[in-house]
Structure formats: structure tokens, C-alpha cells
């Protein structure tokens, strides 16, 4: 439970900073720091167990059928990472309080930072590889939001989009890898996967898995050739950059490589892929950093380089390499976070990050100078600081490895030395160009030391750098051994962390690198000229943008090809595809008739069928005469109502009959406004094409219907038939299903009906005109007028009757509602809008609303009795005249249905009725 809390605390804390920012910026920072600190305390509480070699586990089933569990575990490596994320996160929160300006929305910043933190914690603590992928994607999304925090800036938006595209694509690869891993191992539990290394490396799927995992890891950790998003991500506020580069995001990539090390390493493929990419990234990043004039740009490329170094170490397949890699993760996190924060301080206090404009700052900010100088020295690998130790270990490892490899193995130490040299050179540039040299006089602001507490986070990190650098075995060896033990799944063999290992090859390499760096720095102008001559401006960003533009253009062309603006063509494509797919299914799956005995067809049925076919053919062939086609369509509808009666569906017949009336009226009203005839304009070719498609579709449906009707049926309906009376209190099973068993569906459907009515109203209310008093009785046929007024009370009684009997006999809310609507529409037609709305009502919105509320509250009332939404109850009442009568709560629901249906239908029809025909000749 505590383990889950560590992840959930930052995520749950998201709501606090945006709320508390009203109480001030400091309050907002406290709101962000509190969940972080609490999580850190919880983590510290578990640390002793882990240091003793234990593993803390917690697991809840989430989607067990998919193998996705809410499972977490904490081992040495997870402890290290969680500690880094929370510890550095806390420092970042403090730093950001002073870094962000008054104009920046601080609540939003802290909320996104906490989301990012929670997602990172999820990655490092997941014990389920699918869960890990979920958190992995969450970091992509939250880092997108953080990088694009200054959303008014184009570079921030572009940088954010690029980071999301690259790391998101990597995330998809990782998902594929996770599924393959689960397939090979038979479990998605991470610990099971880690223990199954031999199975995985022996599997034929090993190479695809390795490739996909590495794609995920390399995109996240900005390895060549996916590095280009990282420099553009520095458009983020500096606290975010510091976090992204030190303990999170890019470190998630190396975390993954390290975490899956037991499962995937030990093979030649692993060695070649990981080492070569790591080496290339290290040298490339270091070289790139040397020529960056932007402080953060320099640091971004240096991050790429150091991540390459870490990757390389894990690629070596040796225990000492793993220890060195884990050590460098820690060291890089400390010095890189402090360097970014220093760069942020410089930017904040001088107004620029351009190295060409900076200089001589030692006079104005001496303390910051010392802090930055120590961090840079650590990055360069100068003795007495932590970076030196892991760099020495790195040199030692590549020398050992080159001896093992033979052949071109000597390249490894050579490139390692070059990487170290370049690293030292840009570190020197970072310090010397900014704090020493002459003042350029080009600073936008007068520089001074930052606020006290803005420097505290840097000081804490620098202290760690120095303590680890001077007394490493005392300060860090237990942590390192525990963390490396987590990666290796066993306690590593004893190793010694010491400043002095005697005169050996690695020491020579270090000396060479540092001396070479000084020489290179003093020849930097010549180097820069050479660089500009040799490498033309070619950026990964340009590549990315052109690929993106190409993809957008291609999808535009595809869309234009599929949809040329002709609706008819689109409908042909849709129906044609459906026909082809269904035909394929019918041919492969079989459309044979079943064994069920056929029902005899009496002569009247044949007559009805014949009339239906004739009416249908008339509609299709004579549709240019719209009145005729409308009448024939009505005939088809009435005949289908007859069919419903014959095949034992009286409710449907009643519904169809009343709907037929209102929809015919509706179409007639529409014809008042639309043209009365359809022009003959389709070419014979098109008519033939449509005809063939129609016959194919109709034939297919007929075959399908026949096959369905002749096969035996095993339906779930037995349940409804059996429980209708005892459970729902009604004999009419169709009605009981509507208002009780499937009441929630019905509730949704009447909602749709109400919405449709409101849409109809909203779309044509502007053109609706209530006919003026000139609309007199004289204009309406007297027979109809008198007849309809006499009929009205009669219809009202019928409505009540049909409504009340609905639960036991054909009828119910839908049908009664339709009949009532017909009664009202008849008044409209016979007496005109003016007369009707004066006497009845012109306002149907309250009726729709009342209907929906009645139905809804009937459902909610179930909750009062502690049963699910829309559970009905009933009892028997003895009414004087009617006799024994069941009163069910479903009747109230049905009343809601009734009101909604009446309101909606009459609203729609009256709106159509108020449309004026267009003035001829317009």
C-alpha cells in the first residue's frame, strides 16, 4: 500500500498547486513540495528493507484478463531512481519558486511537474511491463506539456511536439516489445521477465524484442540518431530542463536499458547495438556541445554525450560495466541538475544565455561561479569530484574490453579518450567564457547573485558531488552496490571506489583527455573555423520537420483521392465496401439455410407481399414524382405494420402505424418547402451502376435474412419471458423489457429523441412563422375541422387507455405518446397553427424536459432503496371500475417516455408546419 502511495501522492497532489496558488506563489510551492516530501519519507521508510537485500512488493488486479495488474516492486535499483526523482524533484520545486516570473502561471507549472514526477515514479516502480508502458506514455505526455509550458512561444510548441512525436513513437515500439516479451515469457510481471533471461535470448523473437526495446529506450534517452528532440526541449523553463536532464525523462531511457539488462543482455547483438550506438552518441554529443553558443544548448548536447557513455557501459555485458553505469547515472544526475540550475541563475540574473554575450561574471556572482565551476569540473572528470570516479571506471572498462576484443578493439579506448577530451573542453568553455575573460558589455541586465533560496538546491547538489568525489567508499558504495545488485539480480562482487588506483592506462587516458581539452580550448577559434568548413548546417530538426510535412502532404493527397467532395461517390464507396465485405464473409462463412421448419404462407400474406413489392418498385422507379413516391413509401410502411401483426408483434404494429402517420405528415410538410419533382439527371451508366449495387445489396440481405430465419434459435429471451411477471409485474414482455429490464437503454433513447427535436427546432426556428390571424377557419375544410374537434377527447381517452394497459397488453408510453401526438397534429392540420397553439400549447420544451426528468428521477429513486438505477417495484391495487390493477414504479418511467415522445414529435411537426414555401422565382 505504501508503495502505491509513493506513486499516487504526486499524482493526487496535482490538484493542490493550482488551487493554492490563489494564496500566493509560496503556498503553491509548498503544495507541490508536501506530497513529494511525504513520498520521499515513505520511500526512506522502506530503504532499510531494500538495503538488507529485500524487495518490497504490492499488487492489485486491474485488468487480469489482459495480464495488466497494478503491481509495484521496490528493489535497489528502483530505490535509487525513486530517490533521485523525489530528491531532485524537491530541489527543483524550491528552485522553480524563484525562477518563474510573476507572469507565469505557477499552479499549472507545479501541477504538470507533479504529474511528470508521478509518471516517472510509476516507470521505476512498476512490476508489470504493461503498466510500465502506461507510465512511460504518461511521461511523454506530461513532458510535452512541460516543454510547451510557455505556450505563446513557437519554439516551445515545436519543441514539445517534436519530443512527443519522437518519444511517443518510441513508446509504441516499447508497447510492442512488452507484448512480445509477455508472449515469450508467458507473464507480464516484470520480475518474472527479468528472471527468464535465458528463455528470452534463446527465443526466435529475441531480435525483434531487442530492436523494439532499444528503439523505445534510445528515443527516450536521446541516443543518435534520435537525439535531435532533446536540444529543442530546452525551450522549456530551466527547472524543467534540469529535471528532464538529470533524474527523469532521458534517464527513463537508460533506466529501461538497465532494468531489462538481465532479460536481454549477454548476447553479441546486445553488445554490438548498445555499445556502438552509445559510443557514437557519446562522441557526437560531446562534439556538438563544443560549438553551442547557448548555455542550455551546450548542456543539452553534453547530456546526450553522457547518456551515450552510460548506454555504452551497459552494452559491455560486464558486471563492472553495470556498476560504472549505475554510478555515472547518479553522478550525472547531480552535476547536470546543478549545471542547469546554474545556467538558469545566469539567465535569470543577466537576461541572456548566449555565451558570446557573457563574460567576467566572477566579479558579480562569485558564489555561483564556484558552484558552476565545481559542477563543470565534475562533468569534465577532474579528480576530487564525483564525475572523475565514474569516468575512471569507464576508461578501465573500455581498456579491459578492448583487450578482450582484439582486432579493432583499440578503437574503443581511443574514442573514449576523444569523448572525455571533448567533454572536458566544453566544460572548460562553460566556466571560462561565462565567469572569466572580459565583460562584453552586452548584458541586458546588471548581473548580481540570485535570491538566497534559489541557490540552495545547487549548493546541496554540489555538496554531494564533492563528498562523493572525496570519500567515495564511505559516501556511496553501499547505495551503489544495492542499486547495481538490483540491475544484476544478485549482489555484485566487491569493488573498490578509490581516488587512486596507481599509474595505469586509464589514468594516462584521463591525463591525455584533460591536457588535450586545455589545448583544444585555447585553439577554439581555429577549431570553430574548421568545424564550420567541414560540417554544413544540417539539423535533425530540419529532417524531422520535412518528414512531418511530407506525412501531412501525403495524408492530404490520400484524403483528397478518397473524398473528392461528391456525396454520391462516398455513399457508393461505403455501400460497395459493405457489399464486398459481406459477400466475402458469406462465401467463406456460408449462408446456407438451416433446418428449421418453414412457416406456411396463407394467401393474404402473398397478397400483402405482392402489394409491398409493387409499392417498393413504384418508389424506386417513379421517385421523380415526389408525392407519388411519398404515398408509395407510406404504403410500404403500412404493409410492414401488417406484417408485424401477422408475425406476433402487436406492439411493433401499433408503433409502426402511428409513426407512419406522423412521418408521412412530416414529409408532406417538407414537400411544401422543397421542390415537388426530382429532375431526371442521372446518366444511364450511373443508374445501372447504382442498380447493380442495389440488387447485390438487397440480394445479400435477403439471403442473410433467410439463413437467419431458417436456423434454430437459442435465445436469451427465455429469461425475460420467465421473469417478466414475477420480476417486472407486467404481462407484456416487450413493454417490461423497455421500461424495466433494459430501462437504461430506453432512457438513453428518449434522451436522443428529445435532443433530435431540439436540433430540429434550433435549425429552422429562424424561418418559422406563426401564420397570422388571416389564418382563419375558412381556409380549412369544415368536415375535417369539426371531425377532428370531436375526435380530440376521444383520442385523449384512447391515449390514456393504451398507456395504462401497456404493461400487460400491447401499448405503453411510446405508443400512447405517438397516438397523442397524432391527435395534436390533427388539430394543427385541421384548425391551423394559430388556433391550436392558442388552445393547447405552443411550448413543448417543458414537456420534453418533464418527461426526461420523470424518467430520470424514477430511476434515481431506486437509489433511495439501495438498489441499482432504474430497478422497478410493483404492487397490486384494486381500482373500483378497472378491477385488479398492478401499479409498478415502471409506470412512472413509462409516463416519462410518454411525455418525451409527445413533446418531441409535436415540436418537430409544428416546426415543419410553420415553414413558408419559398417565393417562386427566387
Amino acid at each position, binding site marked *: 500500500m505504501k508503495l502505491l502511495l509513493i506513486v499516487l501522492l504526486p499524482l493526487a497532489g496535482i490538484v493542490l498547486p493550482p488551487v493554492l496558488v490563489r494564496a500566493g506563489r509560496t503556498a503553491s510551492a509548498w503544495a507541490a513540495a508536501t506530497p513529494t516530501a511525504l513520498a520521499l519519507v515513505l520511500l526512506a521508510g522502506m530503504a532499510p528493507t531494500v538495503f538488507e537485500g529485500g524487495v518490497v512488493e504490492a499488487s492489485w488486479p486491474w485488468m487480469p484478463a489482459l495480464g495488466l495488474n497494478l503491481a509495484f516492486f521496490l528493489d535497489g535499483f528502483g530505490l535509487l531512481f525513486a530517490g533521485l526523482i523525489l530528491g531532485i524533484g524537491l530541489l527543483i520545486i524550491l528552485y522553480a519558486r524563484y525562477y518563474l516570473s510573476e507572469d507565469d502561471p505557477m499552479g499549472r507549472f507545479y501541477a504538470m511537474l507533479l504529474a511528470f514526477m508521478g509518471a516517472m515514479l510509476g516507470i521505476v516502480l512498476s512490476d508489470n511491463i504493461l503498466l510500465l508502458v502506461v507510465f512511460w506514455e504518461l511521461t511523454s505526455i506530461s513532458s510535452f506539456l512541460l516543454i510547451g509550458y510557455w505556450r505563446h512561444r513557437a519554439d516551445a510548441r515545436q519543441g514539445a511536439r517534436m519530443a512527443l512525436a519522437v518519444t511517443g513513437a518510441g513508446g509504441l515500439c516499447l508497447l510492442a516489445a512488452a507484448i512480445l516479451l509477455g508472449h515469450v515469457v508467458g507473464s507480464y510481471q516484470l520480475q518474472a521477465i527479468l528472471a527468464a533471461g535465458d528463455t528470452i535470448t534463446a527465443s526466435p523473437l529475441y531480435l525483434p524484442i531487442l530492436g523494439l526495446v532499444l528503439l523505445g529506450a534510445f528515443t527516450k534517452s536521446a541516443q543518435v540518431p534520435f537525439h535531435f528532440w532533446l536540444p529543442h526541449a530546452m525551450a522549456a523553463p530551466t527547472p524543467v530542463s534540469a529535471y528532464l536532464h538529470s533524474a527523469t525523462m532521458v534517464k527513463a531511457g537508460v533506466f529501461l536499458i538497465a532494468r531489462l539488462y538481465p532479460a536481454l543482455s549477454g548476447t553479441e547483438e546486445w553488445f554490438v547495438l548498445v555499445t556502438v550506438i552509445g559510443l557514437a552518441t557519446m562522441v557526437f554529443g560531446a562534439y556538438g556541445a563544443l560549438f553551442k553558443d547557448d548555455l542550455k544548448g551546450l548542456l543539452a548536447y553534453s547530456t546526450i554525450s553522457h547518456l551515450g557513455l552510460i548506454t555504452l557501459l551497459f552494452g559491455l555485458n560486464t558486471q563492472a560495466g553495470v556498476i560504472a553505469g549505475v554510478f555515472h547515472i547518479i553522478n550525472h544526475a547531480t552535476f547536470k541538475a546543478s549545471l542547469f540550475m546554474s545556467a538558469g541563475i545566469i539567465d535569470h540574473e543577466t537576461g541572456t544565455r548566449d555565451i558570446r554575450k557573457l563574460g567576467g561574471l566572477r566579479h558579480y556572482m562569485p558564489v555561483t561561479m564556484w558552484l558552476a565551476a565545481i559542477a563543470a569540473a565534475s562533468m569534465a572528470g577532474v579528480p576530487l569530484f564525483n564525475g572523475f570516479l565514474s569516468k575512471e571506471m569507464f576508461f578501465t572498462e573500455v581498456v579491459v574490453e578492448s583487450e578482450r576484443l582484439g582486432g579493432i578493439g583499440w578503437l574503443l579506448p581511443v574514442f573514449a579518450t576523444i569523448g572525455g577530451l571533448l567533454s572536458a573542453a566544453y566544460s572548460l568553455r562553460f566556466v571560462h567564457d561565462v565567469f572569466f575573460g572580459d565583460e562584453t558589455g552586452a548584458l541586458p541586465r546588471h548581473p548580481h547573485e540570485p535570491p538566497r533560496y534559489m541557490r540552495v538546491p545547487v549548493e546541496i547538489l554540489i555538496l554531494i558531488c564533492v563528498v562523493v568525489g572525496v570519500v567515495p567508499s564511505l559516501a556511496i558504495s553501499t547505495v551503489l552496490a544495492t542499486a547495481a545488485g538490483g540491475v544484476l539480480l544478485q549482489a555484485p562482487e566487491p569493488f573498490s571506489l578509490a581516488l587512486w588506483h596507481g599509474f595505469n592506462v586509464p589514468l594516462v587516458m584521463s591525463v591525455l583527455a584533460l591536457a588535450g581539452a586545455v589545448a583544444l580550448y585555447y585553439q577554439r577559434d581555429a577549431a570553430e573555423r574548421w568545424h564550420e568548413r567541414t560540417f554544413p548546417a544540417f539539423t535533425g530538426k530540419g529532417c524531422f520537420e520535412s518528414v512531418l510535412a511530407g506525412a501531412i502532404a501525403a495524408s492530404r493527397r490520400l484524403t483528397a483521392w478518397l473524398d473528392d467532395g461528391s*456525396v*454520391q461517390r462516398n455513399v457508393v464507396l461505403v*455501400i460497395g465496401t459493405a457489399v464486398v465485405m459481406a459477400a466475402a464473409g458469406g462465401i467463406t462463412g456460408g449462408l446456407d439455410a438451416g433446418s428449421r421448419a418453414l*412457416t406456411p*404462407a396463407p394467401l393474404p400474406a402473398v397478397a400483402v*407481399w405482392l402489394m409491398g*413489392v409493387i409499392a417498393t418498385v413504384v*418508389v*424506386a422507379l417513379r*421517385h421523380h414524382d*415526389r408525392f407519388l*413516391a411519398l404515398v408509395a*413509401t407510406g404504403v*410500404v*410502411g403500412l404493409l410492414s405494420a401488417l*406484417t408485424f401483426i401477422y*408475425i*406476433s*408483434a*402487436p*406492439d*411493433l404494429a401499433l*408503433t*409502426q402505424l402511428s*409513426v407512419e402517420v*406522423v*412521418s408521412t405528415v*412530416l*414529409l408532406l410538410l417538407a414537400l411544401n*418547402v422543397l*421542390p415537388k419533382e426530382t429532375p431526371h*439527371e442521372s446518366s444511364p451508366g450511373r443508374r445501372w451502376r447504382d*442498380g447493380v*449495387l*442495389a*440488387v447485390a*445489396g*438487397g*440480394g445479400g*440481405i*435477403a439471403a442473410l*435474412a433467410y439463413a437467419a*430465419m431458417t436456423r434454430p*434459435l437459442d*435465445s436469451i429471451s427465455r429469461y425475460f*419471458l420467465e421473469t417478466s411477471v414475477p420480476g417486472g409485474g407486467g404481462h*407484456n414482455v*416487450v413493454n417490461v*423489457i423497455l421500461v424495466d429490464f433494459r430501462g437504461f437503454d*430506453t432512457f438513453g433513447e428518449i434522451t436522443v429523441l428529445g435532443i*433530435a*427535436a431540439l*436540433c*430540429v427546432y434550433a*435549425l*429552422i426556428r429562424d424561418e418559422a412563422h406563426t401564420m397570422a390571424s388571416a389564418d382563419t377557419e375558412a381556409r380549412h375544410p369544415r368536415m375535417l375541422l369539426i371531425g377532428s374537434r370531436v375526435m380530440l377527447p376521444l383520442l385523449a381517452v384512447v391515449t390514456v387507455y393504451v398507456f395504462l394497459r401497456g404493461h400487460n*397488453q400491447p401499448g405503453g408510453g*411510446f405508443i400512447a405518446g405517438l397516438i397523442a401526438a397524432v391527435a395534436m397534429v390533427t388539430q394543427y392540420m385541421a384548425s391551423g397553427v394559430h388556433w391550436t397553439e392558442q388552445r393547447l400549447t405552443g411550448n413543448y420544451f417543458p414537456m420534453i424536459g418533464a418527461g426526461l426528468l420523470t424518467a430520470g428521477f424514477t430511476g434515481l429513486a431506486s437509489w433511495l432503496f439501495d438498489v441499482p438505477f432504474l430497478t422497478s417495484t410493483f404492487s397490486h391495487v384494486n381500482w373500483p371500475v378497472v378491477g385488479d390493477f398492478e401499479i409498478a414504479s415502471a409506470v412512472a418511467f413509462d409516463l416519462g417516455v410518454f411525455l418525451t415522445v409527445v413533446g418531441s414529435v409535436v415540436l*418537430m411537426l409544428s416546426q*415543419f408546419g410553420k415553414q413558408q414555401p419559398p417565393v417562386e422565382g427566387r
Partner: protein
Amino acid sequence: MEILIASGIGVVTAAGIYLTLRARTFPVILGLTLLSYAVNLFLVSTGRLAINAPPIVHEGTKAYTDPLPQALVLTAIVIGFAMTAFVLVLALKARRELGSDHVDGRE
């Protein structure tokens, strides 16, 4: 009877498809209306045909037709009406705004 209903559904579907492919809004709406008749009949028929066996429970009666497709179709008929009304209002509006009742909004 099965043959009659299946072929009837087929004929109505074919006419519905043909009209749906026309160029003017009104025939298209009629086509959709025909298609919904066919679909409703089809859905009810998946409960198999039964004569004189409405799903209204009486003591002593054993044979009932399948009530479930009927319940589904009952709401489908009403929703189908709402859809017709909505499409019709779109057609009206389009004709008024664009001066044409062609489905593409232009002659």
C-alpha cells in the same frame, strides 16, 4: 412465409440503396426510410417467425415469440422517425442556404 419475408426485405433494401444513391435530398430521405423498414423487419425476423404467439404472458400458454428483438425494434422505429425529421430539417436548411437540394449542395 420465410421466403416471402426474406425476399420482401431484399426488395425494400434494394430500393432503399438505389434511392440513397440519388443526387437529390428528398429521394435520399425516402431511401433511408425504406432502409429502416427493411432493417426493422430484419431485426424482428432474427427472433424467428411465430404465428399467433405474441410475447404477452398468459397462464397456460407455452409458445411465445422472441420479445427481445421486438423491444429493440420498437425504440428503433421511434428513433428512426427522429432521424428522418433531423435529416429532413438538414435538407430544408441546405436548400434554403445553398439554393439547391443536390446532396453536394451545388448543382
